[in-house]
């Protein structure tokens, strides 16, 4: 079970349907396996129900009910079935072209590879990162917010260990050198609004290639 969760403010915005696509999908992935956040989501939905209930009613167009009744017997739209990739959270299924092992990973170094997911979003880019088992990334900070969800394996930085399901927020004040655990590669979903900015000497050299 996850130890690190999205903030209540993010969960509320998710329940309100007000998060950008990329971040919304990431929260959905976390919530799928997190009973605590499911409970909170339930409560925020209930609050949404209360809000709906509290609104001043607005009369509908006179013909609205007639139009609707005519449509009731229309055949339901056919939902395209996606073949489920095992081990991938449901919200990401439609956006993953293949399982982790078969993705066309790209990257400059053997320790860090990335794969960009095609998710429409005005503000955020969505990527999968793969840190090789036991490898440590060069120290870096972030130009903006970066939300990370551990999908598989685990990584640690100076202060914490993060495992599958953990939701981590890094921002401009975060300066860290994440290291994957020795036993397996660590795969993370990352939603970011600005490219990584590396800080160490080695990092500065790598930086132009790591965007």
């Amino acid at each position, binding site marked *: 079970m996850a130890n690190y969760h999205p903030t209540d403010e993010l969960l*509320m915005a998710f329940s*309100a349907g007000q998060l950008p696509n990329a971040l919304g*999908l990431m929260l959905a992935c976390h919530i799928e396996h997190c009973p605590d956040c499911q409970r909170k989501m339930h409560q925020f939905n209930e609050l949404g129900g209360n809000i709906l209930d509290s609104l001043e009613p607005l009369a509908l167009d006179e013909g609205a009910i007639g139009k609707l009744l005519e449509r009731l017997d229309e055949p339901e739209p056919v939902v395209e079935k996606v073949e489920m990739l095992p081990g991938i959270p449901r919200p990401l299924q439609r956006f993953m072209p293949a399982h982790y092992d078969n993705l066309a990973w790209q990257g400059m170094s053997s320790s860090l590879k990335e794969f960009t997911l095609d998710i429409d979003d005005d503000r955020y880019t969505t990527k999968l990162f793969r840190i090789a088992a036991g490898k440590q990334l060069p120290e870096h900070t972030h130009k903006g917010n970066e939300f990370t969800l551990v999908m598989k394996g685990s990584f640690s930085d100076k202060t914490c260990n993060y495992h599958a399901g953990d939701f981590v927020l890094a921002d401009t004040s975060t300066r860290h050198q994440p290291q994957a655990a020795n036993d397996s590669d660590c795969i993370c979903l990352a939603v970011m609004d600005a490219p990584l900015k590396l800080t160490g000497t080695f990092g500065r050299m790598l930086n132009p290639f790591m965007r």
Partner: protein
Amino acid sequence: MNSLPLTKSRVALQNCDPKPCVDRSLTTNVTDYSSSSLEDLIAAISEKRDKRAFVELFKQTSPRLKAFAMQCGANVSDAEEIVQECMLNVWRKAHTFKPKSGTAITWLYTIIRNRRIDFARKNRHETVSSDDMWLEESGDELESQVHHDLSGEKARSLLDALPNEQKQVVYKVYFEGKPHSEISKDLELPLGTIKSRLRLAMNKLEILAKEQMSWLIIILLMNF
């Protein structure tokens, strides 16, 4: 020769058969829905595919659904279309409503929210849909049942537990989805005030949730 009267009597029987049926249906099968709860209306739609229950549900809820869409920024004609889509979904998905996992209004909220989002996304030709983010609403049945029993009345609604100044910020989050900095500009209040009001609202909700949990434990203990 004998067969004729027999046939006749069959015809006669058939002819008079429907009549008592109609009469019976007037008294027992045709329910007066005007004072039914939203929960009962949805059950009638799901189990009997009853269009009269559907019309009643439409009467009772669609004006608020329209108000919701407009609060979220839709113009009148878009709001009408979003309500159409929402009610069409109610008709098709009534069987997914589980009274044990929440109230009807919460279920309707999740449907109007999703239709509102998908309406906006369709216009922007985006591939992400609400189906990717939300499975049909399902929750911890026991926990919500307890809450349901304790808070059947409007006075116990989560919203009513919040003071007006916190409510105002919460409304902004649900309807406008603005970052806190923009809410602060809109309301001409310092950012810190917005954040602390939202935090206070969260704390209050958390206390209510814990209260529900303790009731749950008490009820479970009483059952043993």
